[in-house]
C-alpha cells in the first residue's frame, strides 16, 4: 500500500484534485453520511411530487378528452423519452465497466440508479395499451410468414409490454447486484429492513467477490441486450408502424443510440449536482466530465451519422413515400423541432467539444449535456407526435402529410408530470442505494496511486486483470 499525503500537487496550471487514499476514508465519507439529511431534501421531494401530481391531472384530462391515437402523441413521446434516457443511462455503467476505465467509478451508481425509472415507464405504458391500434392491416415487425391476421397473438402491445418488463427487471437486477456490497455496509451501520434483506447476508469473502464480479458481467451484458434489442419492437411499434410504407431498418438502432447519448447526458448532469450541492466534490473530478465528454462527442457524431444515413437513403430514392416522410419528419410541420434537435444533439456538442478547455472542464460537459437532454425530448416529441398524427396507419404507402398537432394543456401537464415523477423516483432510489459506489471507490484507493516519476509526478493505475 502506498498511502500518500493528501496535499494537492500542481503540475500544470490548475491544482490536481485528489481522491481519498484509504478504504476507511471512503467508508466514513460515503457510507457514514448516508443517513445524514440532504440539504433541502424535503422541498425537493415535495416539488417533484407536486409535478408528478400535475402529470396525473394531465393524464385524467387526456383520458377524459377521449379520441383515438392521434391525441396521444405527446404521451407516447414522454414514454419514449423516459424509456431511452432512463433505459440508456445504466448502459454507461455497463460499457465503461467492460472497458475497465477507472474514471467511471464515481459515475457507476449514478448511472445504475436510473434503472428504477423503468418501473414508471412500464406503468406509463399501460394506458397506451388500449390506444395503440391493432397490428392487422399495418406494416409491423410482427406479421411474418404469410399469415397476416392474429400472429403472433397479442401483437404488438403484449410484446411491447414484455419488452418494458424485461428492461425494468433487468435494470433493477443490475442495480441490485452492483449495490449488494454497499447495502451490506449500510446494514452494518445499523440500517435494517429492506436494506438488510437486499444485502443477502453479504460478508465480503473472496468467493463472494468473484461471484459478484461474474454476476455483474452477466447482468450488464443481459441488460445491454434487453435495452438495445428492446428498441426494435419499441421503436417500430411506437413510431414506425404508425406511418404506412415507412421501412427504416436503421431506426431502432438510432432510437437506441439517441437514448444512450441522452442517458449519458443525464448521468453527467446528475454528477454535476452531486458535486456542487451534494457534497461529493472529492469523488467527482474533472476527469469524470472529461471522460464523459469524449464519449458524448462520439455519440453525438453517431447521432448525426444515423440521421444522415436514413435521410440520404430517402432523399436519393425519391419514392413518393420517402418524400412525404421527409416532409413529415424533417421539413414540414415539425421542422422547428428537427432543427432544434439538430443543434442541441449534434452541432452544439460537436463545436463545444472540439475546444479542449471546454471538453476538459466541469461546466462545459454539463451545459452540453443539458442541451442534449432538451434536444432528446424535442426529438421524441417530433418522432412520436408526427407519426401518431397520421390518422390511418394501415396500407402500404404514405400519401398525405397531416397537419401538426399542437401542445395542449393535458399534454404539457403530462410531460412535466412524467419527467417530475421519474426524477422523484430517481431521487428516492439514490437516497436508498447511496449516490456513490463505495466498494468501487474503495477499490480505487489501492489501484490508483500518485507517485514521483523522475522529476515530475505521475498517476500509477493498477491493472489487476
Amino acid at each position, binding site marked *: 500500500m502506498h498511502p500518500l499525503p493528501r496535499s494537492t500537487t500542481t*503540475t500544470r496550471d490548475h491544482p490536481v484534485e485528489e481522491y481519498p487514499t484509504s478504504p476507511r476514508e471512503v467508508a466514513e465519507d460515503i457510507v457514514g453520511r448516508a443517513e445524514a439529511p440532504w440539504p433541502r431534501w424535503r422541498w425537493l421531494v415535495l416539488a417533484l411530487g407536486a409535478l408528478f401530481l400535475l402529470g396525473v391531472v394531465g393524464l385524467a384530462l387526456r383520458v377524459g378528452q377521449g379520441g383515438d391515437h392521434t391525441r396521444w402523441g405527446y404521451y407516447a413521446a414522454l414514454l419514449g423519452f423516459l424509456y431511452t434516457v432512463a433505459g440508456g443511462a445504466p448502459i454507461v455503467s455497463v460499457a465503461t465497466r467492460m472497458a475497465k476505465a477507472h474514471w467511471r467509478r464515481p459515475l457507476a451508481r449514478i448511472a445504475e440508479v436510473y434503472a428504477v425509472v423503468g418501473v414508471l415507464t412500464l406503468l406509463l405504458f399501460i394506458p397506451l395499451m388500449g390506444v395503440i391500434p391493432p397490428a392487422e392491416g399495418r406494416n409491423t415487425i410482427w406479421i411474418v410468414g404469410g399469415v397476416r391476421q392474429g400472429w403472433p397473438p397479442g401483437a404488438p402491445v403484449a410484446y411491447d409490454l414484455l419488452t418494458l418488463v424485461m428492461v425494468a427487471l433487468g435494470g433493477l437486477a443490475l442495480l441490485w447486484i452492483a449495490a449488494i456490497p454497499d447495502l451490506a455496509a449500510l446494514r452494518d451501520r445499523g440500517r435494517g429492513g429492506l436494506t438488510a434483506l437486499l444485502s443477502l447476508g453479504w460478508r465480503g469473502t473472496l468467493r463472494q467477490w468473484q461471484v459478484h464480479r461474474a454476476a455483474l458481467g452477466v447482468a450488464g451484458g443481459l441488460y445491454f441486450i434487453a435495452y438495445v434489442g428492446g428498441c426494435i419492437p419499441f421503436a417500430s411499434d411506437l413510431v414506425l408502424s404508425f406511418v404506412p410504407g415507412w421501412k427504416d431498418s436503421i431506426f431502432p438502432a438510432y432510437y437506441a443510440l439517441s437514448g444512450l447519448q441522452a442517458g449519458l447526458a443525464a448521468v453527467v448532469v446528475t454528477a454535476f449536482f452531486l458535486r456542487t450541492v451534494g457534497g461529493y466534490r472529492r469523488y467527482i473530478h474533472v476527469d469524470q466530465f472529461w471522460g464523459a465528454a469524449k464519449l458524448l462527442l462520439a455519440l453525438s457524431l453517431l447521432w448525426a451519422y444515423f440521421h444522415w444515413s436514413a*435521410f*440520404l437513403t430517402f*432523399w*436519393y430514392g*425519391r419514392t413518393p413515400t420517402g418524400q412525404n416522410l421527409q416532409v413529415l419528419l424533417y421539413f414540414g410541420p415539425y421542422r422547428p423541432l428537427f432543427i432544434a434537435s439538430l443543434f442541441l444533439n449534434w452541432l452544439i456538442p460537436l463545436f463545444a467539444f472540439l475546444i*479542449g478547455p471546454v471538453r476538459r472542464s466541469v461546466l462545459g460537459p454539463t451545459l452540453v449535456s443539458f442541451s442534449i437532454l432538451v434536444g432528446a425530448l424535442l426529438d421524441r416529441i417530433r418522432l412520436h407526435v408526427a407519426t401518431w398524427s397520421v390518422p390511418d396507419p394501415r396500407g402500404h404507402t404514405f400519401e398525405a402529410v397531416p397537419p401538426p398537432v399542437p401542445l395542449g394543456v393535458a399534454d404539457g401537464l403530462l410531460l412535466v408530470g412524467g419527467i417530475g415523477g421519474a426524477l422523484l423516483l430517481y431521487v428516492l432510489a439514490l437516497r436508498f442505494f447511496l449516490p456513490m459506489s463505495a466498494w468501487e471507490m474503495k477499490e480505487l484507493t489501492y489501484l490508483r496511486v500518485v507517485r514521483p*516519476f*523522475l*522529476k*515530475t509526478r*505521475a498517476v500509477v493505475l493498477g491493472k489487476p486483470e
Partner: protein
Amino acid sequence: MAERGVLGLFTSAEAAASAGAALREAGVEFEVLTGSPYPEGAFGEHTPPHRLYVFPLVGALCGFSVAILLTAGTQLAYPLVTGGKPVLSIPPMAIITYEGTMLGAILFTVLGVLFESRLPRPLLGLYDKRITLEGWVGILVRGEEGLLGPVERILREHGAVEIKRG
C-alpha cells in the same frame, strides 16, 4: 563568441534527471534527447508551447473551400440533370465536401507536426547513436564557450559517462 554545444550522455534516466535538475537550478536551459518518450517534465525540462491545433483548422477550411468549388463549379459548368436530382444537390455535395475537408485537415496536420517538430533537419548536429540503440539519455546544452565548462562539470558530477562537444 560563437555558440557551441555540449552533449552529456547518461546510461540511466535517473542520473540524467538529476543532472537536469542541477542545470535548472543553475539557470541553464537544456534539451533532452531520448530514444523513447517519457512523461512530460520527467527530466525537469521546459518545453515551449506549440501551435499544432491551428494547422488542422486551416487545413479543414482549405479543403472545404476546394471541395465546394470543385463540386459546385464542375456541376454548373455542364448542368445535366441526372436521376431527377437538382444540378446543385446538397447531399452529394456535402459528402464530397466532407471528404475534402477531412483530407485538408489531415494533410495540414501532418505538415504541422513536421513543422512544429522542426523537421526536416538537414544536419543532425550533436547526437549519439547510443541514444536509440542503448537507451541512453542525452542532455544537450547550447551556449557561449565560457558557459560550457561549468556545464560539463555539472554533467560529469551527475554521472555522465561521456561528453561530446560540438
